[in-house]
């Protein structure tokens, strides 16, 4: 094969090709991740302290993002909010995807009654509206970070399961699966070493998408009064508690909305533009 000339907007780096949209998106995600990690050290004010006599205060020196409905510093709250939004969603999506993926692959590989039972049960779970489920859980056991994470995870397990199972069922029909079975391999090896590497890309894409849904559901739950213990707040809760500032275009409501949008849009764009390993060396 002859190299003619480089084409398209994709560039390459370290044996991967990527495009600029993907890079921009990952920079945004990286920025929020760093903020999530270092938030406690960079917030200008404790998030519970009232620093402004006014409420829904405008952006100004010292209160760079204005103040919230109680007169607390919005910048601090948004920075700390990143920690909870990213942290909780990440934990929840990890649990959801891990369980869903493992169950889905196991069901696909094992088949039979296990597959049927799991599929039926998780299908039934899907039919319960997620917000109502959240409502019942919190009414039953109260609201704390672990409960929140588990609730969100449980809500999204059936989806991850369905998705993975569909992919794994296809892989399961491949001859290399038969070869491995004839070799006498265990189920754990089959799902971990034979199936997983083949579905990891779509699973990661699904992971990202589900992350977005969880960020949004988290904000939806805060509307219904479930969420973090005050004065902590994730971005959704920040939007919610300051929604009264919307008529005044208060930064208190606009900024967290933009934060949610920037994170979710970036994740989606990154998924759509994941860097690709270049694998067309001359054969």
């Amino acid at each position, binding site marked *: 094969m002859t190299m003619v000339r480089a084409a398209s907007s994709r560039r390459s780096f370290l044996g991967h090709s990527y495009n600029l949209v993907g890079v921009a998106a990952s920079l945004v995600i990286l920025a929020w991740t760093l903020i999530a990690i270092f938030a406690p050290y960079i917030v200008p004010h404790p998030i519970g302290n009232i620093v402004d006599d006014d409420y829904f205060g405008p952006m100004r020196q010292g209160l760079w993002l204005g103040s919230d409905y109680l007169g607390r510093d919005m910048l601090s709250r948004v920075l700390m909010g990143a920690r909870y939004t990213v942290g909780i969603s990440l934990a929840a999506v990890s649990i959801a995807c891990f369980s869903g993926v493992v169950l889905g692959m196991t069901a696909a590989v094992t088949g039979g009654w296990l597959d049927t039972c799991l599929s*039926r*049960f998780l*299908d*039934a*779970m*899907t*039919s*319960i*509206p*997620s*917000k*109502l489920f959240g*409502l*019942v*859980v919190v*009414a*039953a*056991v109260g609201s704390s970070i672990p409960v929140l994470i588990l609730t969100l995870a449980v809500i999204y397990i059936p989806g991850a399961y369905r998705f993975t199972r569909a992919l794994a069922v296809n892989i399961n029909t491949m001859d290399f699966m038969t070869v491995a079975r004839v070799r006498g391999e265990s189920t754990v090896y089959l799902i971990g070493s034979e199936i997983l590497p083949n579905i990891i890309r779509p699973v990661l894409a699904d992971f990202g998408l589900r992350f*977005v849904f969880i960020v*949004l559901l988290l*904000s*939806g739950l805060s*509307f*219904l009064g479930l969420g973090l213990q005050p004065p902590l707040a994730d971005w*959704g809760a920040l*939007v*919610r508690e300051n*929604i009264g500032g*919307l*008529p005044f275009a208060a930064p208190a*409501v606009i900024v967290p*909305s933009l934060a*949610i*949008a920037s*994170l*979710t*849009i970036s994740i*989606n*764009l990154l998924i*759509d533009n994941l860097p690709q390993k270049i694998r067309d060396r001359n054969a």
Partner: protein
Amino acid sequence: MKSGVFNLVLKRLAVAAVTLLIVLFAVFFATSMLPGDTASMLLGQAATPEAVAGLREAMHLNDPAILRFLRWLLGLLHGDLGTSYANDMPVAALIGGRLLNTVKLAGITTLLSVPLALTLGITAAMLRGSLYDRTVTILSIGVISVPEFMVATLAVLVFAVYLKWLPALSSVNEAHSLADLVRIYAMPVITLIFVISAQMIRMTRAAVIETLSTPYVEMALLKGASRSRMVFRHALPNALGPIVNAVALSLSYLVGGVIIVETIFNYPGIAKLMVDAVATRDLPLIQSCAMIFCLGYLFLITAADIVAIMSNPRLR
């Protein structure tokens, strides 16, 4: 061939019945975990132990919950949804009007969002990689990243408070003409379209793109078919399965997931009814609502399956 379809439908229905039963039991166990009962919830601050005991006695809540649940299930077999603990009205009467409202809202949203989403998804797939495609893709992501209550509140502020074009509340009782209907439903429907369309657009686009790369679409191209013929005659009928599946999943949200829209527009649907029922620990009402959500979901999923089967001669 015909009996094959019939058998498939029958099998689906059996599966649906099992799923429904699982859900009812799951909901029952979940609600029995909730602290308090209807008597203490109704009394609220006035719930002294004697008062609760008295009311519980009067409301016949002293039987074990499982017994009451099984009795309710038995009644269900005769088509009786039971009587609400909270206000002694037949559950059917409580649900009736509100279910109709939910169906209306869901129906109107469906009628508008499905064609919109399909059109956008299909056209984006046809013009894959174009500016239009990118715009649709990014907009659809953008739209899902805005929390629902934000969309709804913003819409109210703009259209009801400042422009005064539309009412802020969706008072179903005031719909006397088509114009009223449009005014009343405009905002909740727009909000819901925002919420559910994005996923449908994405899935439609993906499904169409996938079928567009099949050999039979290439064959159509080599027959000299136009782009639209390739899409509408060849790609779409075969992409129908995944598309209706995505549509069904999105629409299932409209049955029980619209609690926020119902709250903000004060629209009396059954999602809010269920929240009330949970708040008052009103077992028959909770169960009936859960059943409706489950049935709605199953109906959509089963309908999607059947459409997929009907559209695919290999499965017929």
